[in-house]
Every structure is written in structure tokens, then in C-alpha cells.
């Protein structure tokens, strides 16, 4: 939902106070580049869209369906590489060839609470696109792939990795 009005910060610093005669008394202030967030598009991706829908609230021990719908820019085959975290009950590493309009169904059986991911990579002849679909089970903490935890050393947060 957009804001009713977004005024650039710099412009907000450059407002005019209106005198009784209706003539603007202009006040200026040092201005910087407008504090608009600059964000690049990110890297290029294949023209494929993956929509997903969970069949229910994921609960430990209860099967839940994850439906994936594929929309591609053309009717050429799309190779999906699907992998799921082992805590989602099935260690999947499988490939499926689909086309635009197809759907894929996965059944997850969460083993523990946490935030886990289903990873789907769509490979096309004109590029590829990766999707990571978060699956929140209960209120558990997110799974992490990191093997070194940060620590505070001399007031500085460091991820200390051992050299070979």
C-alpha cells in the first residue's frame, strides 16, 4: 500500500513558509541526494514464475501438501531441481521436467519445529531461476547452514574461521 504522499526528504528540508501576503518566503537548507533507496534489479533470471501454496498450517508429524505452479514465458520444457530440508520429513533431491501450466505436489511431514526451506531451481534454455520457499513449523528458530557462530572479540563481532 503506497503512502498518501511521499515527499523527498531533501524537499522536505526545502519548504516554503507562506507569509500573510501569499508570497512564499523560501528557506533553504543544505541538501543531499534525496534519501530514496537505490536498489538494483539484481541478477537476471529466467522468465519463469513459481507460485506455491501450502495445504495447511505445518505441524510436526502431520503431512501437509505444498503445491507448486509453474508459469514460463514459452512452452519449452523446464527442468526443476527440488530439494528439501531433512527436517521437512523427506530428504528430496529430485529432478522433474515440466512445462508452463504444470503443477507439482510435494508432501511434507515436518519432524521438528523451525523455519525450513524447500529449494526449487528452474532451469531453462534461456536461463535459470532459484526459489527458496520458507516453511515455518510452529515457532521454532530457522535452520542455518553456517558452521561458525559469530563472537564478540574486543568489542567487535567476528565470524572466526580457521585457516588451513
Amino acid at each position: 500500500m503506497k503512502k498518501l504522499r511521499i515527499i523527498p526528504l531533501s524537499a522536505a528540508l526545502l519548504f516554503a513558509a507562506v507569509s500573510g501576503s501569499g508570497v512564499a518566503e523560501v528557506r533553504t537548507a543544505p541538501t543531499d541526494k534525496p534519501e530514496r533507496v537505490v536498489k538494483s534489479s539484481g541478477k537476471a533470471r529466467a522468465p519463469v514464475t513459481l507460485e506455491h501454496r501450502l495445504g495447511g498450517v505445518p505441524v510436526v508429524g502431520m503431512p501437509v501438501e505444498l503445491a507448486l505452479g509453474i508459469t514460463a514465458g514459452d512452452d519449452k520444457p523446464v527442468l526443476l531441481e527440488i530439494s528439501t530440508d531433512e527436517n521437512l520429513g523427506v530428504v528430496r533431491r529430485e529432478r522433474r521436467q515440466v512445462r508452463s501450466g504444470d503443477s507439482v505436489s510435494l508432501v511434507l511431514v515436518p519432524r521438528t519445529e523451525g523455519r525450513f526451506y524447500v529449494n526449487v531451481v528452474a532451469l531453462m534454455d534461456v536461463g535459470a531461476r532459484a526459489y527458496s520457499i520458507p516453511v515455518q513449523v510452529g515457532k521454532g528458530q530457522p535452520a542455518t547452514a553456517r558452521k561458525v557462530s559469530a563472537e564478540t572479540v574486543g568489542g567487535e563481532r567476528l565470524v572466526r574461521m580457521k585457516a588451513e
Partner: protein
Amino acid sequence: MDNRILVRGHRLATLVAIMLFAAACGGGGGGGGDNTTNNDTDNDGIVNTADNCPTTSNASQADNDADGSGDACDADDDNDGAADAADNCPFIANAGQEDNDGDGSGDLCDSDDDNDTVADSSDNCPLVANTDQADSDGDGFGDACDTGANVVVSGKATFDKVPHSTSTNGLDYISTLSLPVRLAVVEVIDAASAAVLATVETDSQGDYSALVPTNTNVFVRVRAEMGRAGAPGWDLEVVDNTQGDALYVLESATFDTGNANSVRDLHAASGWTGAGYGSTRAAAPFAAMDAIYTGMESVLAVDPAAVFPRLTVKWSPDNSTATGDESLGEIGNTFFRRTGFDNREILLLGKEDSDTDEYDSHVVIHEFGHYFEDAFSRADTIGGPHSSGDRLDPRVAFSEGWGYAFAGVAQDDPVTRDALGFGQASGFQIDVEDNSNLNPGWYSEGSAQTIIYDVIDSASDGVDSVSLGFSPVFDVLTGNIDNSVPPATIFSFITLLKQANPAAGPAIDAIVSGQSIDSAAIDEYGSGETNDAGRGSDVLPVYSGLVVGAGVTNVCSLGGDSDFGTFNKLSVRRFLELPIPSTGGYRFTASGPADSDPDVVLHRRGFLGIYETIGPIETFDVTLEAGDYVVEVYEFSNITDTPRGRTCIDVSVVGL
């Protein structure tokens, strides 16, 4: 102090005075202050509103400390608190004014700190005069300063660089290389007290050398950080966004320095154990840092004194394409962003079996190219998703094309390879030397990357017979385009490049025309362009005319599957060229159908302001300087996932 921020004379932005009337003004008044009408008081060719010394002539606009006040009128050119007249290093910050030899030249800018005629860089006692450089024990420390209580710990820092398979574009772990960690900060730490005993940096071969006390238990720490003050200068670090932006460091085992010099090499391994990342991915932060430095080298090659504003690279093995909480790694994609005035970041994907980018050096440098746009040139892109063959907003097409072309130039390799999938074994490539782009034109990132790369590279292929090198392109991006009124697009780039390199004009035209852009006819606004993307309407002219008091100009915003797409696709946002005849107040009105919601953005040498109240009529009053402006108009829903579709909008401007 004027209203500009400069980095080594490269203007980050010029925001001309735009003064909003209070909404309650009712249109009254129009003159505003007199500060907007005095064009160039010091006659140096830079208008006052853009001049970092409005009353002192300084055509170069040099500004050593990037404080927005030019050197010619700045009483403290290095912002160290010591006025230039009394500063022993006026252009290098040294608040302490240290001057070892008392020669009046501060140590930080004195190449011979002990006045013994031996330059510090080769002096075996840089702070003790010893012209004879006697070193009877040959330990590298001159007798004059050798206490016998120090030894040298030296070594090489390296990291695993996993290359790409040229057949699959995936990562080829079997062919992993060991590359030097270049220009990284290295510390020798006292293992007992955690005190930093020495801080040095690696050289271009990854070698470091530090003087440390004898018989002390220490370890060596290589920081994923590059820092250098002055010009050239940089400030780069790689942190873990999922661990409170903790800095990645590589540490040796603890060892006793003993009584003799010793060597401690450090290697950051990829962590790949054959079927997956079975151990710490220590090489990843250093691979990303090395790619960034490769990009910096290209800039330094044409501007040896370039100063790179702070850049933070955020990488984690948990960084995935999920969009949500970045502290969980849900970053959505690899991308560059600036928040606030100077918080520049590149976020990199790192999730195994999904998408990792730390070894995709072209991808990293592509994003560094966006950093370059923002810090050195113009970043007019609006972002958003993009794919090969998309017909894009010309700002996005140019920015993305620039990124891929720059990545190719920086590595002298036109092929971007992006690895992903199971074991990072799959991938795809983007070859900027491939001229056969799908849907070529001024709205194509493929066309933009082909054109930019071809005007730079030394290879002649197809219609490419020009080899300007990077320097002329750098000059256009950091000078001409940065000062150009319309947003940066292939039109402004080509027009200004040809103006600066007239002899190459015909050859440039050949490359550009090869991408279905009417190079010989266009100007910065794309006037004369005839490629309408095959639509016939609602695409050309690229910039419609808008004249104060001359009635309405009707433009149509497209959106949806039947058009080119939403948000950042072609003709979602339409552009109008607006000359403001005199400084004063103006009322803008954009009016669409009853169920529409037109919005307006003003530009002049960059973004000025956005006006987006809800409803079919957008109207606002502003005071503007005389000069040329660009008005961007669009139907709001067309930049969302629920587009209204083709929406025609009447735009008008009247004086107040």
C-alpha cells in the same frame, strides 16, 4: 557550503533547489528566494546551485575530503580539524599532526619521516635516521632501530577460487584454484591478551610481513576487509548479515614467535568435501572481496586516485532467494542497494543446492557496477525483475546492460556464468559479445550490454570496429551523463559518447544501429528513434513534449500481460520533457479515468521528487528553477501485480 556532495569531483547528485509551496498556499506567490536566480557568480562554468565553491572560481570542482565544499574555498581540505594554513598535511587527515622529524611535513604525507634521505618505503628504520642503512644481523631492521626484541612474521594469504565449467556453467570443484587474498587487512594478535600487535595488509600476491615481539604466543588474522585512506582509497568489508553483520576473518593457529623470523601462510578453503559443503566455507568472503577488487582495478586503471566510498558486502551460507527477513538470510536475490545517504551494500546469495554467487565473479562485479553508478555516476534504475528478451524501462535496460558489460571488461571475459542448482553444478551464461539479442532496441539490456562492451573492447566482430577502451566510457559516465538532464539511458550514453569522441561516431553508429536503435538520429532524449517495439503506439516518442501553459499532453501507461509487463517494463512509465521558462511556482496536474490512480515523478539530473496521492487526479504545486526537467507519469496499479492495464493520462503544467 552549497548543496552538493562530491567524491573526488564526481558528483553523487545535484539536487537543484526545488521548493515546495505549502499546500495551503492556494497558488499565491511565485518568486521565491533570490538564491535560485544567480547563475554563476564566479564565472567558472558551474552554476551556483551546482557549484561547490559558488563564489570562488574552481572549474575542476576538486573536493579532497568530499564534504561538499570545494578545495578552493574549504579552509580544511581534509576535515581533520586542523585548518589548512596550519596543517602539516592539508590533504590527508591527521588530527594529531605527528611529525617525527620536525620538518614541517606530517608523517602521513612525508615520504621520509626521519629525513635521512632514504624513503620510508625502503628504509629499514623509517623513524630513526640511518643513512647508511646498516643492518649487521641482516634481520631487515637497521642497527639504529633494531632492539633485538622483534622478529618478522610473514606469509601468504590465499583462498580457494572455484571456477566454472565452460560446458555446464556450473562450479567445477575439481579445478579449484588457490588465489592470493589481495590487499586485505592482516593483524597479528597476542593470544593471551587479544591485543593487536601489528596491523599490515597483504600485497597483490597475498604476501604480508609484520614486525612482532619475540617469544610471544600469537596468531595471524586475515580480515575480509580492505581499507586505505587518501587517494586512491577504499573501504570494503564482507560481513554475515545473518549474524549481526559480523566481519568474516580467517585465523591461523596460535604459535610462538620465538627468536627468529618465521613464515605463517593462511589458506581459506572452500569447504567443499565432495558431495557438499561439509566444512566451513571460509573462502567465500574472500572470493567475493577479490571480485570487488577486480572491479576496482578497472576504475583505478583510468582514475588512479579514485576514492571508493564505503561498501559492505553481505554474504551468508543462509542467504537465499526467499524474500523476507534479511537477518535470516531471506534476501530475495543478489543485488546492490544504497539506503540513506551513503550506506551502500551488495547482498549475495549463498544457499547451497539453490543459488550461490560468491564464485560467480561476473555477477559480483555486475553488482559492483551498480555501486559504481551510484557512487561515481548516476543510478537512475528503478530495479525490478528482468529476464533476457524483456522490453524494459530504458533506465533499467541501460543499468543492467552496463553491469554485465562492466563485468566483462573488468575480467577481460565477456561471458557471465551463474552457477546454481544441485551442487552448484548447473548454470547459465550471458555473453555480452553475442550480438544476436532477443528483442533488440533501446529498451533491451542485451542491446545495452552489447553496445557498451563493443565500444570498449579491443576485439572487432560483426559490426564492431571500434575499440575506445574504458577511459572514454568512464569519462562519459562520471562526467557527461552525470550532468545530463534526462535519466541515464542508452540514448544519453551514446549521444554523449559520440560528442566526446566524434572521430568514432560512425563506428559507434554501426554498433548501435546493429541493435535496432536509430543511432544517427537520436539525441539524449531519444528524439528521432523509430523503434516502437512493434507495438505501433504508446511507445514513441520516448519523451513527449510538455509545455507550460500550453494545455494537456496525453500519454498512456501500459501494464499487464497483453503489454510488456508491469513495474519496470517498457511504457509502464511514460516520460515528458518539460522546459521551465523562468524560476517560479508551477502547478502540475495528471488526470486519468475515474478508476485510475496516476502518479508523477520529477527528475532533473537525477530524482527530485515523487507525488503519489490516491485518486484519478494528481496535482501539486512546486517552485522550480528555470531549465529543463523530465516528468515521469504512470498509472500506479501498473507498477503492482494487479495492473489496470493501458491507462491514458492528461498531463499539464501551468505557472502560478
